[in-house]
């Protein structure tokens, strides 16, 4: 079955310009939906990267009672040193803790006045060898019930909170993107249907003189795919030149430290863009294929 390339290009070109408003509507819907879709993916990868950075320094802090005895402290230290899962530990005594406290609350002198080194807990800052949150949690929990220990605080709990928050945002983005993609699919389907209606006389003649079914169908399917790929191209532009710089800007924002470590790598961007183009081609192919099989009686 020889379908001439120049024929397909000529027919598709004519069709795209014949329904310019409808084509534009489908393309714009594709742009918006794919930009949302891609942004949600970028955000999610950004969070993962942020988490990775936190992971490098994941640690837990074993806070002891202020009145911990020397034996208790020595026992905890021995346990930490002998534990193969602990990479390193740092002891922070009450005076150092007080300095940290003063630094942290330097805006609230009355709070500092209320506190003295004796009531603050000394602590071990622990860097584990294995950074899997579950392992770290199990390791830290071993120390929670030791005599003289007040509590064990995990850094990744904070990370988890951030991740959960952004996952919630991401899920909503994705839901909106999926809805819009469905709208795009239906618009493509209708655009192709209108294109076929505009060319019904040609189609009738083609059937009459014995053009094969695929010869009649292919230009319409190509038209659908071109529309979504046009949309994808714009969406890729948006993500590369608008969304990614925006995320980078957020991560450098000192006022919102929650975004620190929030980076999108070139690899993330390329992966997302490829995925967006793939989804676009799929939507275009499905929309036009459905239109062709339902409304082109060949």
């Amino acid at each position: 079955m020889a379908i001439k390339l120049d024929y397909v290009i000529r027919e598709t070109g004519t069709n795209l310009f014949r329904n310019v408003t409808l084509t534009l509507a489908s393309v714009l819907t594709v742009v918006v939906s794919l930009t949302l879709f891609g942004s949600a993916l970028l955000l999610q990868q950004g969070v993962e990267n942020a988490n990775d950075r936190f992971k490098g320094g994941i640690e837990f802090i074993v806070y002891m009672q202020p009145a911990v005895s020397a034996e208790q402290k020595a026992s905890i230290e021995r346990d930490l040193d002998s534990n193969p899962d602990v990479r390193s530990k740092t002891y922070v005594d009450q005076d150092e803790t007080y300095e940290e406290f003063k630094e942290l609350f330097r805006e609230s002198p009355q709070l500092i006045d209320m506190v003295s080194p004796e009531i603050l807990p000394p602590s071990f800052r622990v860097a584990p060898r294995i950074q899997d949150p579950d392992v770290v949690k199990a390791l830290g929990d071993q120390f929670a019930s030791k005599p003289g220990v007040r509590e064990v605080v995990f850094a990744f709990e904070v990370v988890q909170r951030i991740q959960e928050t952004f996952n919630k945002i991401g899920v909503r983005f994705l839901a909106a993107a999926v809805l819009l993609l469905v709208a795009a699919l239906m618009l493509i389907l209708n655009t192709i249907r209108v294109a076929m209606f505009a060319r019904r006389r040609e189609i009738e003649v083609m059937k009459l003189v014995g053009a094969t079914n695929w010869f009649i169908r292919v230009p319409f399917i190509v038209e659908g795919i071109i529309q979504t790929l046009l949309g994808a191209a714009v969406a890729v532009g948006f993500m590369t030149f608008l969304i990614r710089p925006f995320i980078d800007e957020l991560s450098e924002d000192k006022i919102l430290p929650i975004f620190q470590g929030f980076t999108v790598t070139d690899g993330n961007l390329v992966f997302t863009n490829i995925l967006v183009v793939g989804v676009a081609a799929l939507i275009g192919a499905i929309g036009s294929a459905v239109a062709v099989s339902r409304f082109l009686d060949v």
Partner: protein
Amino acid sequence: MIKLENVSKVYKGDVTALHDASVEVQKGEFVFLVGASGSGKSTFLRLVNKEETPEHGRIYVAGKDINTLSSWKVPYLRRNIGSVFQDFKLLINKTVYENVAFALEVIGRPRHVVRTQVPAILELVGLAKKMDNFPNELSGGEQQRVSIARAFVNRPLILLADEPTGNLDPATSVGIMRLLDRINRTGTTVVMATHDRSIVDTMRRRVIELDRGSIIRDQSRGVYE
């Protein structure tokens, strides 16, 4: 070339378009289908190029049972059958040349074939000088010549004509009939549905008369009634 065996076709709402029709048309014959509107002439033609499928019976075209033909092979059947209609079915945004060339292009004929065949066929139908005109710049008779050129440019074995002179005045109709006769003389089987009494009576070819879907007369060198 065309053989119908006990063919029945019923449309929705129990409209019987063809009832137990059996007929055989030999290669190179010229056959008139006559009968009142709704007698089944058009259905007969539509069954032969598989635009319709019968409820009962078998239809053979060029020795092949077209009932068992898979749908992807139908286009190849139609490449052997040229079709001409009362309303011409020309594409108004294409020139005469482009209309005829279209029929070859969409079945994938190479460009050099299109370039030689189209002018040749337009010469045959007497429109060589109007190649670059658009259909609405032509008279009805000329438009029908274009449509015949389009149907015949691929040199089909069979030409089906559904009231090709239905929209034309008698003098123009004679010209169209001369053209169809000429095409028939090249060995092409022609089946023509018509209401035109004077054409049938003048040509004296085989006449098949249909009445409410049944063949009531099949006469060689026949007349309209």
